[in-house]
C-alpha cells in the first residue's frame, strides 16, 4: 500500500481515536465523513439498482411480456404513495403502501423465524445423544437440555399473590428460573466477549496498517 493511499485511512483513524479525550470536532469530522459517504453510497446504489434492475427489466423492457410491464406499475404506484407521507395532508394515502410493506414483511419474518430458527433449534435441543456417543456428547446434550428448559421457564411469569400482598413465583419455578438466568448470563457474557475480541481484532488490523504505513514512510 503506497503512502498516498494509506494516508487517508491513517488520518481518519487518528481522528476517530481522538474520542479518547472526549467528543471533539476532529472526531465529529471523521464521523460525519463516514456517515455522509455511506449514505451517499447507499443512495447511489439503490438508485442504480432501481433503474438497472427494476425499471429497465420490467416497465421499460419493451421486449418483455405486457403483463410483466403492467404488473411492474403496481410497486411503482405503491412507492409513489409512500412519497405522499411527506405531507401530513396526504400522509393517509401512503398508509396503503405501509400496510402492504408491514403485512408482507411480518409474514415473511414469521415464516422464516418459525421454519428457519425455532423448529430447527427445538429439534436440535431435543435430540438425545445416541448410545454410542461419548461422555462428552451426553454432557453436552444434558447441558443443552437443562439450559433450554430453564431459560424458557425463566420467561414463564406465573406467580401468585402471597398473603403479604407480594407477587411471588412458586419455589420450584424460582429455582429453575435461577438456573435459566445463569444460562442467560453466560450467553450474554459470551456475546459481549465476542464483541470485545472483534473490536480488538479491528483495532489490531488498523494498527497493523498504521505500522506498515509508518514503516514504509520511514523506509522511504
Amino acid at each position, binding site marked *: 500500500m503506497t503512502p498516498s493511499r494509506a494516508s487517508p485511512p491513517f488520518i481518519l483513524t487518528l481522528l476517530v481515536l481522538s474520542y479518547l*479525550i472526549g467528543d471533539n470536532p476532529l472526531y465529529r469530522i471523521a464521523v460525519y465523513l463516514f456517515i455522509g459517504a*455511506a449514505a451517499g453510497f447507499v443512495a447511489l*446504489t439503490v438508485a442504480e439498482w432501481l433503474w438497472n434492475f427494476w425499471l429497465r427489466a420490467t416497465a421499460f423492457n419493451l421486449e418483455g411480456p405486457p403483463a410483466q410491464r403492467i404488473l411492474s406499475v403496481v410497486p411503482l404506484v405503491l412507492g409513489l404513495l409512500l412519497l405522499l407521507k411527506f405531507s401530513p395532508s396526504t400522509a393517509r394515502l401512503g398508509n396503503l403502501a405501509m400496510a402492504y410493506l408491514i403485512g408482507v414483511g411480518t409474514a415473511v419474518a414469521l415464516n422464516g423465524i418459525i421454519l428457519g*430458527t425455532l423448529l430447527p433449534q427445538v429439534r436440535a435441543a431435543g435430540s438425545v445423544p445416541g448410545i454410542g456417543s461419548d461422555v462428552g456428547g451426553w454432557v453436552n446434550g444434558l447441558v443443552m437440555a437443562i439450559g433450554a428448559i430453564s431459560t424458557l421457564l425463566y420467561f414463564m411469569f406465573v406467580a401468585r399473590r402471597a398473603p403479604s400482598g407480594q407477587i411471588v413465583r412458586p419455589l420450584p419455578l424460582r429455582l429453575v428460573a435461577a438456573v435459566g438466568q445463569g444460562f442467560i448470563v453466560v450467553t450474554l457474557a459470551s456475546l459481549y466477549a465476542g464483541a470485545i475480541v472483534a473490536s480488538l*481484532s479491528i483495532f489490531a488490523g488498523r494498527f497493523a496498517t498504521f505500522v506498515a504505513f509508518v514503516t514504509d514512510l520511514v523506509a522511504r
Partner: protein
Amino acid sequence: MGLEDQPEAEAPDWFHEVDLSGGTDLLGDTGSLADKLLGEAPAAPAEEPVPEWFADVEMPAGGPAGTDQDDSELAWLSGLGAPEEASEEAPSPEGEAEPALDWLADAGAPDFGAPVDEAEAAPEAEVGELEPDWMADLGAPVDEAEAAPEAEAGELEPDWMADFGVPAGEAEAAPEAEAGELEPDWMADFGVPAGEAEAAPEVEAGEAEPDWMAALGGLDEAEAAPEAAAPEAETLDWMAELGALDEALPEVPAALEADDEAPALDWMAEFGAPVAAGEVGPPVDEAETPEPGWMADFDLPAADAAPLPEPALEEDMPGWLAEMRPAGLDDVEAVEAVEETGEEEALAPGEVPGWLEAARPSEHFERWGASAPEEAEVPEWAEPLSPLAGGLAAADDIAREESAGPLVGLKGTLLAEPMMSVPGAPELVTARVVTEEDQRQANLLAAITRDLLEGLEEEEEAGAEARPAPARRRVRIPFGRIAISLLLVVALAVPFFVAIDLDAPAGLAAPAQEVVNQIDAVPAGSPVLLAFEYGAAEAVELEPAARAVVARLADRGARIVLLTTNPVGALVGNRLVADVTQGGGEVVNLGYLAGYLGGLRSLVARDENPQAAAPLRFGFDYRGEASGLDVNTLRESFRLIVVLPGQLDALRAWVEQVDSVTGREGLPGQPVPMVAVVGAGSEPVAAAYYESGQLEGYVTGYKDAYVYATEQNAGDTLFVNPEARRVAVTLGAVAAAGVIAVGSVGYALRGLLGRRRRRRR
C-alpha cells in the same frame, strides 16, 4: 298459665273487691289494649267462656261518656295500691317468691294479671341477690327484678308491650347493655332514648336499673315479671283473656280506640318517679320545667328527654272510677290543683346536669377552652385581600358578631347566601349581566393579580442581580477511560515492536475445517454464491477470513457470484474479490438485493414452488449488464452458499429465509450447503446454527483465518504482519479480561463496603 285456666279460687281477692260497675273506661282501655295485642298475637276465640272470676264483675251497659282517655283517671291509680294479700295468695310453686307486691301499694298498678305472673316468675328468681337499691326504695319484690336477667327480653317480650309505642330501634340501640337487653322496649318510652341506654352500657341489669325505672316501679315489675318467667304462650293467654273480656264488653267508642296508646303512656307516666319516690312531681314539661332530679342522674340531654303528656283533668273521670278511687290521694289532688291553676312557677327549679352545663353555649371563646384572640396586624400583602379593600363588604358587616351557631362570638364571619335560592325552573340567560358587585370582584382580582405579578418580577430581577455568575464549566478528564485505553493500546501495540512468542493454534477448528471441506467439494466452474453482508466497519475483522475463502474458491476454479442485501457490501465485496483474484477467475457481482427479508425470500420462491417466477435478480450484474447466469432455482444452480455477515441479523436472515429452503430435504434439486464467515461477536449464533446442522461450517474472524493462511503458507500474501497481529489480538484479549476482572472485584468490594457502612449507620 292464663287466667282462663285458673279456678275461681285462684283469682286474686283484691280483684273481687274491685267494683267495675261504675263504668267501662278502665276495661275499655284494657280492652283496646287487648285488641291491639290480639291483632298481633293469635286471637283468642270469642266463644271462650268467660272465667268465673270475671263473671262477678258487673259490666255497665254503656261505654264511657268521654272519648278522650283521661290521664287523670289513671293518675289516681298511682295511689291505688294492689292489695297485698292478692300477691300473698298467689300460687308460688317453688315457694321462693316473696309476697312482695307491696310496691303495688305505692305504684298502684291496675294489673289484672300481675299476681298470677309474679307467681309464675317467682320460681325462676333468686331472691335478694341482685336487688338494686331503687327497688329497695320502692319496696318492690326482688324476684321480679331478678327474673329479668334470666329471661331473654327479645324472646319473651309480649306483643302487648309494643302497644306502648316503643320503637324497636330504641330497644336495639343498646345491644351491649344487659340492662338494655333485659329492659323491655316499653321502658324506653318512659323517657330513655337509645342514646341514654348506651350511656350506661356494661352494667348488670340489676345494678343499672335507673331510678326513673324505680319511679315506674310497680308497673314495671308487675309486667316484667311475666315477661321474665312466664312463657310467651301463657302471657298471651291471659291477654287473650282480656281480649275476650273486651269483646264481651260493650263496644268501645272509636275515638277512644284511636287514642288508646296515649292514655296507656299517660297513666304510666303518672306512675313515674315522683310518686314512687314519695314526691309529688310536677307535670312533665321539658320546655318549661326544670329537669327533675331523678332524670339528672342519667345525664340525659334535655332535648332527648321524651316529653310526657300532661295529665288530663279529673273532670272526665267517670263515676265508677271515682268510686274505685282509694282514699289517701290528697297529695295527688294537690298536684293536680297546682297543674290546673298553672302555678308552675311555684315549683322549685331543677338543677341542670353538669354535662348539660358544659354544653351551654357561652358568649365567647371560653367554650373552646381558649381566650379570645387578640386582634392581629394584617400584613400588607394581605390587605388587598380584605373584603373592605375591594368594597365587597361594609365595615358594619365586618364588625358584625356572630350570635349563634358554632362561630358565635366571632367577628367578620362570612354571611350565608345573601340571597335566598328560589326553587323552580332556571330562567334562560340571554345576555351577560355584570352587576356592580361582579365588577368590584373583577377589579379586586385584577388588582391582586397585578400586584402579585409585579412582585414576582421584582423578586426575579433581584434574584438575578444577586445570583453569582455561572462558574466556568469544569472539564472532567476521564482518567479511568484513558487509563484503560492506554493499557489496551500498549497490549495491542507491543507485539508489533517486540517479538513475543505465543503458541499458535494447532489446527483449524472443526467448523472451520468443514468450511474448507465444503469449498474443496465444489466442482470447478460451479457457481458459488457469496453474500457480502458486512460494511466498512466490520471489514477489518472479516476481511482476513474472507480473503482466505475467496482465495481458496478461486483456486478451486469456482464461479464466484456476489450478492448482498447491504448496499455497502456490494462495494466491499467487489473490491475484496478483485484484490484477491487479481482480475482472474470468473466473478459475477450481482450487487445489491433490495427488500432484505422479502428479497431473500424471493430468491428461493421457485425452489419452494416450481410454478413461481424465476428470480429476476440473477439476470443482470450490478452495472445492469447481462450476468450470463442461467439460474432457475438456487438448489439447481449453486453448489455452495457462503455468507459473510457483519451483524447477527444478516446471518439469521440468510439462514431463516434461504437455508430453510435450500437446505431442506425433499424439494426438487439437491440441498445447497451453507457456510459462514463470521466475526467473533457472531460466533455464538453461528455455533448454534452449526450445532443444529443449518450451517455446514463457519470461520471465525482473524483466528481461523490465520490458521488457514498458515497451513496454506499464504499468510503474508493475505494479511499484513499476520503473526504480530495474532499476538496483538491475544494480548489485547488478555488485557481486556484483566480489566474486566479488576473492575468486577473493585465493584464488588465497593458494594460490600457500602453495605457495611450502611449497616453501621
